[in-house]
């Protein structure tokens, strides 16, 4: 998961969209903006995966034990 997260962080730096606004997605969204909009949706999917695969369930049990 850590590797996936690092790769996804790297994908934020989309140098290939740097200098051109075209193609305009849906006729008005510049390519760079459309890419980053899609990136946020991808981040949500990644978080869903993280919650499913790496949820720290033990932490909640630890906190719910009798308070110190």
């Amino acid at each position, binding site marked *: 998961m850590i590797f996936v*997260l690092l790769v*996804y*962080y790297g994908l*934020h*730096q*989309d*140098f290939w*969209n*740097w*200098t*051109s*606004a*075209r193609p*305009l997605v849906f*006729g*008005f*969204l*510049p390519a*760079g*903006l459309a890419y*980053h*909009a899609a*990136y*946020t*949706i991808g*981040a*949500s999917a*990644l*978080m*869903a995966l*993280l*919650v499913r695969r790496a*949820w*720290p369930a*033990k*932490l*909640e049990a*630890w*906190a*719910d*034990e009798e*308070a*110190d």
Partner: protein
Amino acid sequence: MTATIFVFAYLAIALYIGIFAFRRSRGQAEDYFLAGRSIGPWVFVLSLFGTHMTAFAILGSSGHAFNFGIVTFGLMASSSALIVPLCLFFLGTRLWAVGKKFGHITPVQIFRDRWECGHIGTVIFFLQAALLVPYIIIGVMGGGTTLAVISGGAIPFWAGGLLVAVVVMSYVFFGGMRGTAWVNTFQTVLFLSFGLVAVLIISNGMGGFANVAERLLADPRTSPLLSREKFSPLAFLSYTFNPLSAIAFPHIAIFCMTAKHMRQFKKTVIFYPLCILLIWLPCVCLGAFANQATEVPAIAAKLAEKATTMRPVVADDVMLRLLAHYAPEWLAGLLGAGIMAAVMASDSQILALSTMFTEDVFAFYGAREKFGEKAQVATGRLFIVIVTAFAYFTALNAKASIFDLAVQFSFAGFSAMLPLYIAALFWKGSTKWGALAATLWTSCCTIALFFTPRGFTIAGLSPVVPMTIGAALLIWLVSIATPKPSQQTVDRYFSV
């Protein structure tokens, strides 16, 4: 006039929610400051998001996009969409667990207990408080700007800011965390509902965004606004450090401790990026496309100023100007109330400051034992009045734009404080002296930032990068060389 009435109605509802929450309160400190750690799942998601999204997200983003174009979204929104949920996942859940297990309410209480320190915690409190004040000022500025534009200038900036400050102060004063969380939930629902409507109305008024985009691209002066050709990749990369501030903001860290169950974080981390998309994409689009709204007199004046000076202009009000010009008055009022909802997120910062003062200073130095818990809550309320008044009078004279004020001081400073949280919660070898070194480093850098020009960089990087890396190195190096807390304390925190 109709628009102003809608905004006033919204303010009245927010006030009523605060007073309603007051009736549910039990007068105890944990109930007032943390809503008795009883916030439910959906209120937690929406309120946490509303707490984080402020005037910066709505007015600051569109103003920045007006000057610099679509790069604004990548700078702050998409990076936040990844990093803020990650911080909530790894650090927010840990804060919740430690807060619940040991009864802590503020981050400084955790630091004091974890590192066995007293006055060093007070130093951290003062830095956190100093960094939070600019964010509160932003809220007042946003409120003043919104009311001034929506009312067509009938309500001047000073009166709008005053009204917003008084309303926010009142519902925080009465409702505490419960009132603030409910109002934030209401605000988030309101803005998420009307944001898309605002885009459609304005797009239609401007002749369709497809036409606007083509006109912007056809003009060599405006075409760079739709790409990032004028922005350095290194500076773009360095902005990904700013969202690290999210969990280090005391109001977010404190809010993490209000959840009833840790599993409430699941929904939050998954839906957070989508909420960011829904708020930021319309704001950035409208800000960039406003460069073609020459039929709006106030925007035309800004464009003329930009062309003459070849410098960015203060443009926090562009979205409101578009709304006032293109939407029917009743709809502008509804949408204006939605914008006002997001702008007024300074409530949680004010409450956080009050919580920190009463817990980290008032109670820590023995006043709670001496005067009782009711006196602590009363002191918290008095502190709310003082902070709000200070923020209001400072906002009246603020020269910087909302975006600059947030990025230059609050984000950079709190990002540099993140290593403290990581060290306290994940590193057994960290010490109070390491924490002190990182805190002093952040304080000195923030003071230095005050004297640097706008857009200052170090080797092409925003100051937030060296500040954060410097703080991390200091806490590491100094901790290695200094005595550790007792094994008993370390075991208590790392027995999971």
